[in-house]
């Protein structure tokens, strides 16, 4: 069934859409009450974030826009040392979208939310004119398990860990768009279990950040800028699969600027680096984790290349290729 503009009127059709798809999938006692706002059972300090998701195509190897919308927000909460608890979901649906497609997205969200241990407690649906695209905003709140984790916190000598291979989400999306066949799947995943493993093992995490839009280069430049330090990384230590390398060669892409949706960096004190690496590697989502560099005095991000040369790694300018997350 095609969604037309009347599904956004706020009347009977809107409420049918909400009942048949969203309540059915997101089913929980808070959401089901359909109040103006959800009432939450939460303790301690709270982390709070939002992201919108506008990916094309909406379905790809390894996930869909719904999985992204859950993992993206769950991961932003996790990066602040918080346990993700509750999400909201706002759908902006272009007329012409298939209700079956929306149902599939909602079902994926249900499963992803279950894995991540979060409940979707409030939602909203709007229909706009267009070509059947679906845009999703999620916001999330979590309980902070450890205070003081912050992008402003990195200190000289700290070590930077990356939880796994670069570029897989970006490559999966671009493969669909460009009609290139491969087995690259989006790495889209909830990262809280890695965070919780690190915290349980008393790793004194300075800062964490998930590596999304803008890629590792952007995240490291943010670290450098916020912590007022230089970030030095080693190109040979960057984990990238051969398949992604081949893919990048075809399109002239650089894994440093490619989006992931299930990767994070963690900055830790040097004496805990090896232990943190082991913990990451023992986690299902951190199997290919690596130590990729360290914090020094100065500004900017520099990289020792495979040939032993040295260059700067700046942030992304303009837009290399159409958006992928």
């Amino acid at each position, binding site marked *: 069934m095609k969604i037309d503009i009347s599904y956004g009127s706020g009347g009977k059709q809107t409420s049918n859409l909400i009942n048949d798809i969203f309540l059915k999938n997101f089913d929980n006692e808070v959401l089901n009450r359909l109040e103006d706002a959800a009432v939450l059972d939460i303790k301690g300090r709270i982390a709070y974030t939002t992201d919108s998701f506008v990916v094309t195509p909406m379905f790809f190897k390894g996930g869909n826009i719904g999985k992204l919308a859950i993992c993206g927000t769950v991961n932003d909460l996790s990066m602040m040392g918080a346990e993700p608890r509750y999400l909201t979901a706002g759908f902006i649906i272009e007329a012409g979208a298939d209700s079956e497609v929306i149902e599939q997205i909602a079902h994926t969200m249900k499963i992803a939310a279950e894995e991540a241990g979060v409940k979707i407690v409030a939602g909203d649906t709007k229909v706009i004119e267009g070509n059947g695209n679906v845009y999703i905003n999620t916001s999330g709140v979590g309980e902070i398990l450890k205070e003081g984790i912050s992008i402003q916190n990195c200190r000289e000598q700290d070590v930077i860990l990356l939880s796994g291979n670069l570029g897989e989400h970006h490559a999966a999306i671009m493969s669909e768009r*460009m009609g290139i066949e491969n087995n690259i799947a989006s790495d889209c995943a909830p990262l809280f279990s890695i965070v919780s493993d690190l915290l349980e093992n008393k790793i004194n995490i300075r800062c964490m950040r998930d590596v999304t839009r803008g890629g590792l280069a952007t995240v490291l430049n943010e670290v450098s800028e916020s912590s007022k330090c230089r970030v030095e990384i080693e190109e040979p230590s960057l984990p990238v699969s051969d398949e992604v390398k081949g893919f990048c060669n075809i399109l002239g892409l650089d894994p440093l600027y490619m989006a992931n949706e299930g990767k994070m960096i963690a900055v830790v004190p040097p004496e805990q680096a090896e232990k943190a690496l082991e913990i990451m590697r023992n986690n299902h989502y951190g199997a290919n984790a690596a130590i990729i560099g360290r914090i020094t005095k100065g500004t900017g991000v520099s990289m*020792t290349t495979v*040939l032993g*040369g*040295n*260059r*700067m790694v*700046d942030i992304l300018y*303009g837009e*290399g290729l159409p958006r992928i997350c």
Partner: protein
Amino acid sequence: MITLQQITRELKEYDGREIKIMEVCGTHTSSIFKNGIRSLISPKIKLISGPGCPVCVTPSVYVDKLVDISLKENHCVLTFGDMMKVKGNEHSLTEAAAIGGKVKVVYSPLDAVKIATEDANTQYVFAAVGFETTTPIYGILIDEIIKKQISNLKILTSLKTITPALTYICENEKNIDAFIAPGHVSVIIGCDAYKELAEKYHKPFVVAGFEGEHILAAVYEIFLQLKENKACMKNMYISAVSDKGNMQALSVINQYFEPKDDFWRGIGVIEKSSLRLKPEYFQYDAGSDFDEYKESPPKGCKCKEVILGRISPAECPLFAKQCTPLSAVGPCMVSAEGACGIWYKNRGRE
């Protein structure tokens, strides 16, 4: 066998007279940056980015025309991603898209066939830029258009050839000691093309691949030749480049295109330096003949000096001040293969 370590040690320790090597090809420029080649060699060996970034040398009137086409009712411009950000006299294609222009990024010129066939109501124009590497592919495209009788697809050409540009530089810029010849252009035109130049102007011409090792080896080869005062063409990309080039590709070029004088942004008009569709194929051309190139170079921009190796980007007074990738004064700052842009992204390296 010599090792990479030996080569880099020797290149790093060099402290003789300043050597200026021009890499002509933008892809070399990009690889030099990505591999950190400059950090591996002596500051006395200067690597200079020549006019081989098609985006940098494409005249702004060409971009203007693309922008106009994209804004016309029922028209759509097809382009490689690289062209999106280059400014014409008013807008870039990215900006044109923001004000309602229709622009589509494609991976291959041949994708255009499918796109145009599926939407007969739109007039498509492919932004056919590039050097000899890409020109034969446009030839194949014209071939397909004719065979499949596609009436809603044309090309707007800005196709450069490399030898006239090299001749121009050899004639006018005495300060370049040697050239790294482009790898993939040479696949098509063959390395014999540089023999005459090497001899006539007494400069080493080394054809190189694109790995860091290729480039270091080429620099070292040049270093050795200069040391011995030699000036040979040397092909160091033998896996791909032959003496005569790809004859099949060259014959496609000759079938559809013919040489014309052309304007190079930052340089000016160079004789017979471009390829245009032959008159019998004009119906597939979207108006590539520009009467005049209203190219007053942007005020204060030293692009010409940069492209010709007279100064480094950092010596331009606007560099990293008024001119940054987001507010580029000249095209060399905006292209991914442009010298100024690459210099900018590498700023802060000690």
